[in-house]
Structures are given as C-alpha cells and as structure tokens.
C-alpha cells in the first residue's frame, strides 16, 4: 500500500512532461506576457528612435502623433521611448531583489533545517522579527542609510523579502528532511551540506522557483512605489514607478497619459507574474 503510493509518487516526480501541460490557458497567457515584457526590456532600447531624455517644452502634454506614438509628457519627452527604456530599470530591480532574497532565504533556511536546535530557533525568531516590519517601511529606513537610488531600494527590499522565502523553504525542507531517504543518506556518512544541496534543494526547487515568480510581482510594485515617492530610481532615468510619480501633476491637469501608460504596464506585468507564480505554487504543492 505504502509501496504503491511511493511508486506513484516517484513516477509523478520523474515523469518528463513539457512544462506546458502543467499550465492552464491563463498560465500560458501569463508566461507569454512576461516573455514579451522581458523582450521589450532587453531589446526595447534598440526600438527607441527618440532620445527618451530629450526635452521639448513646446510639445508638453501633446497627444499621439507619428513622431511620438504615445504622446509627450510634461517636459515634452517622448512617452513611448521612456516606457521602453524604463522597462529594463523597472524589471532589473525586482529581478535583483528576487535573486538576492531567494538565494539568501534558501541558504538560511537550509542551514537552519540541517543544523537544527538553537540555530534553527534563532533563525526562526529573526525571520519573525523581520516579518514584523513592512518591507516598504524597511526600504524607506534603508534609504536613510544608503541614500536614495535603485541600489538602496534593492538592498532594502532584498532584506525584507528574505524572510518570506526563508519561511517557505524552511517548511518544505523540514518535511523533506524527515523523509526516510535522508536517513539512508546520513547513514552513508554524507555531509549535511551534500545532502542539503544535492538532494533536498533539487527536490524543493519547484516550490522555490514558484515563490520567486510570485515575489517578482510584489517586488515590482514595491520598487515602483519607492520610485513613486522619490526614493527609488532618480530623475531623469526613465522608470515606470517614477513615471507615475511625475505623471501625477498631469492627472490634475487632465493629462493622465504618462501615469496611465506606466501603471498599465506595471499592472499587466504584476498580474502576469502573480498568475504564473500562483499556478506554479499550486502545482508544486500538489506534487509534494
């Protein structure tokens, strides 16, 4: 009975199926949207024909035209090229946050689980303590230390995102560690680091990457919010969050294009990242 269940489980785990079959239509659309956004961020600057920072006060708030596809902002800068060149800064930030917090959180969680005892308790308490701080508040505090700019925002958000990842990985790793095969590896005299990195980590990698996808969406919003209040990306660099900030004045003058386009891109990207992440998380939870 248990042996049968184990076989079924093993078959499920090792069956090689293309990723696509796991995804619903929504998941596919989300992945496609993210791919398009990523391509725009990488190749966008090549498509730009107008200098995104070229000021043309005579064209302030002018509507779409053949030269300026989406119109111009308060200083007459081309919105289309600003959105395109802002894509990379808007996406690289969250990407760095996700990578840093995932690596850090996973390393912390795996070592806590393996070493156990007081070390595990200590890590768990620290995680709880950092949890108590809203990420954005921590980021605002961090700018008072590191100064404003993308770098400070990324560092601060990485720190505040680490506990989320660490908590999830710790739970999964604890469960994995209690499985009999880990005892069998221990009794072969393998080091904790080998077992953690070569067995436990690959077996929970699905869950980790799913949660990384999810936190990408949140990090994008948080970084945009920091840029919006002026603590993140600094002018004149184009950035979606900063564009919403500078577009505020336009909204009051009934010229909402700048804020509208930037927020639209943020909403689309975040919605895509969250739907894909949700689906991946559900999938990896069903599996284990």
């Amino acid at each position, binding site marked *: 009975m248990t*042996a049968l269940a*184990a076989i079924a489980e093993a078959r499920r785990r090792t069956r090689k199926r293309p990723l696509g079959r796991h995804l619903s239509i929504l998941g596919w659309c989300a992945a496609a949207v993210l791919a398009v956004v990523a391509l725009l961020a990488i190749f966008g600057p090549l498509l730009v024909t107008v200098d995104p920072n070229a000021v043309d006060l005579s064209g302030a708030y002018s509507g779409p035209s053949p030269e300026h596809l989406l119109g111009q902002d308060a200083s007459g800068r081309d919105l289309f090229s600003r959105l395109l060149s802002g894509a990379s800064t808007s996406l690289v930030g969250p990407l760095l946050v996700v990578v840093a917090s995932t690596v850090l959180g996973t390393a912390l969680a795996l070592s806590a689980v393996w070493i156990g005892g007081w070390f595990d308790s200590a890590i768990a308490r620290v995680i709880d303590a950092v949890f108590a701080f809203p990420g954005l508040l921590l980021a605002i505090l961090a700018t008072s230390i590191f100064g404003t700019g993308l770098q400070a925002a990324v560092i601060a958000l990485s720190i505040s995102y680490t506990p989320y990842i660490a908590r999830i990985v710790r739970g999964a790793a604890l469960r994995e560690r209690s499985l009999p*095969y880990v005892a069998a590896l*221990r009794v072969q005299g*393998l080091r904790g680091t080998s077992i953690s990195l*070569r067995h436990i980590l690959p077996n929970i990698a699905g869950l980790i990457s799913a949660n990384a996808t999810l936190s990408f969406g949140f990090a994008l919003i948080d970084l945009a919010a920091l840029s919006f209040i002026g603590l993140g990306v600094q002018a004149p660099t184009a950035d979606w969050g900063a564009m919403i900030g500078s577009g505020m004045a336009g909204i009051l003058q009934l010229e909402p294009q700048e804020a509208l386009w930037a927020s639209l891109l943020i909403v689309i990207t975040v919605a895509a990242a969250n739907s894909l992440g949700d689906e991946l998380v559900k999938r990896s939870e069903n599996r284990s």
Partner: protein
Amino acid sequence: MSALLEVDGLSVQLPVAGEFRTVLQDVSFSLEAGQTLGLVGESGSGKSMTVRSIARLLPPGARTTGSIRFDGASVLDLRGDALRKFRSRDVSMIFQDPRAHTNPVRKIGDFLTEAMRINGKVPPREAERRAVELLAEVGIHDGERRLKQFPHELSGGLLQRVMIAASLAVKPRLILADEPTTALDVTTQSEVMAILARLQREYGMAMLFITHDLELAAAVCDRTVVMYAGAMVEHQDSSRLHTDPLHPYSAALMQARPEIDRRVPRLPAIPGHPTSAFEAPDGCAFAPRCRFAEDACRAALPPLESMGDAAYSRCRRAAELRGHLLATAEHSGGLGDGAGVGDSAGLEEEVAR
C-alpha cells in the same frame, strides 16, 4: 576476545508531546566480528530503536543512557567528522522499505556512486565501474543499464539488492539490517536473504538482523535477542530458542506460528495487545498477557538473568518453567481469539524459508 560491538545498559527516551517516554530500557548485548545477532519482537518492541541508536539515527531530542562501543570506541560520543567516518566506513544500514529510502528523482547510478565520489574522492568513471561490480555481486548482471534507471523502474527485490550493493560499497565491518526482506514477496525474500548471507560470509561482516520471521532468524543468526516493550526478554543461541525458549513470550511466539507438519484446529494467539515501553505496567511488561503470571510478576521488572550456557531470560519463573513453556501452551490449546493480537499476526504469516 573483545567484541566488535558492545551495547551495555542502553536506554532511550524520546520526547513526545513535551514529556519523555521510554522506548528502550536496559538493552545489553555484544556482537563479535563475522557473527550475526537477530533481534525479534513485535512492532514497537524497540528493535528498530536499538539499531537506530547504533547508527546514531535517533530523532532529535532523544535522551540516551548506557553505552555503545564499536571496536572499543564509544559510539554515543562520536561527533562531526568522527561520526561521519564511523558511518561511512564501519557501519552500513539496510532498511525495510528500499523504495522510501532512495531519493526518487535520482538515478540508481547516482545513489550507488555518491558516497564513493564524495566521501572516498573516487573519480566518477572509477566509481561507476565499481558500482557495476557491486551490482554483479548482488546478482544484477546488467549493471550498466541499471545505473541509468530510476528507483521506481526497479522491482522491490531488485531495489533492495541495490541497497545491499550500496551498503557493501564501503566494505563495512557491521551491517545493520532492519527487516530487509519484510517489504518483499516471499520468493524474492529468500533470494535477497541468500545474497545477504553469502556476502556477509565473504566480507566477514558482523550483522545485526531485525526480523519478524522466527524461522529466518533461526536460519541466519547465531544468536537471537527477543524484545518486548523496549526490553530484552530473552537472549540465547538461535538454535536453542526454538526448542528451549526461556521466556513465556518467546514460547508464545513459537506457538503462534503455523507449522507444515502440525495440525491445530486454531493457532494459539497471544491474548491482548502488544505494548510499547512507555505504556508498560509496573513489573514485567508481558505479565498482563502471560498465562504463567503471578502477583509477584506485576510488582517489579525482573532483571535479565543468566540461565547458563550464555542464555539469558527476564522471567522470574524462567528456571521453574524451563522445559514446560512449549508443552503447557500446546496442551491448553488456543487461548484468546487472535483478534487483538495486532502485529504478532505478521509473524504467523511469514512463511519459512
């Protein structure tokens, strides 16, 4: 001659819901190089815990007293590198369910060569060659193909042979076999057992063999320890255990077995439920189920006493009852209806080799 493995007064307590519960009490035995010691008893009697204490695989927070000496060194005091060395060189363990004890997403080749590559710093090519040799030793002759397969692609018997091959990789001096054949079907059982016994002889390894199967214990083991509720109740030569049991529990186990040349209207099962150590009443843990129990049996746990010829029993009345245990049980026929016997039913179903 000093023994390879000496377990002396081993007691283990595990934290369960905030309080410590005794799972093993006062277990003592010794095992010489090349010898096989059988551990038999119902589930929860402490067989696995004994073996896990030796491999230092007890759950975190376990409280251990007494001593375990391997080749003179205290196993319970091993830390860090010394513990890894002990596990990777001196002792190997074979588990009951090979399926659960392999990482399902790693190939057989990874599993067999990992310890060699990482602990022994053997180059991958060489480790693979050695793995194929080891597979041949356990009777798997298409090793190259097997190395590329996943655990779920192998049958239980085949996978258990792979586990045995893995445990041989380091040429250990002691093999801990925790019911290695229980999860296999009967024909595979005997194959796997034959391989294990042959390799044990060839490699000159000592073996601690846990089983439910009394016949198997008699065939494979030099000496047998019978455990009940976390304590040893009897310890003597396997050959004599069957003809001259020294504890009512062992005798009742013998009686509860079907035999091919004996007709009984109903197998005499042991009445009552098996007990764990922490549920055990004061006095002899078996007393509530024992047909020979007297009031004095319930007063205090009797010590494990020598009965001569390196035979030990934890029964107050062992000397008095010796020789009558089997006869009396047979005479009085079926006691109890077997409905509450739980795991001891498993003993009956296992077919003699």
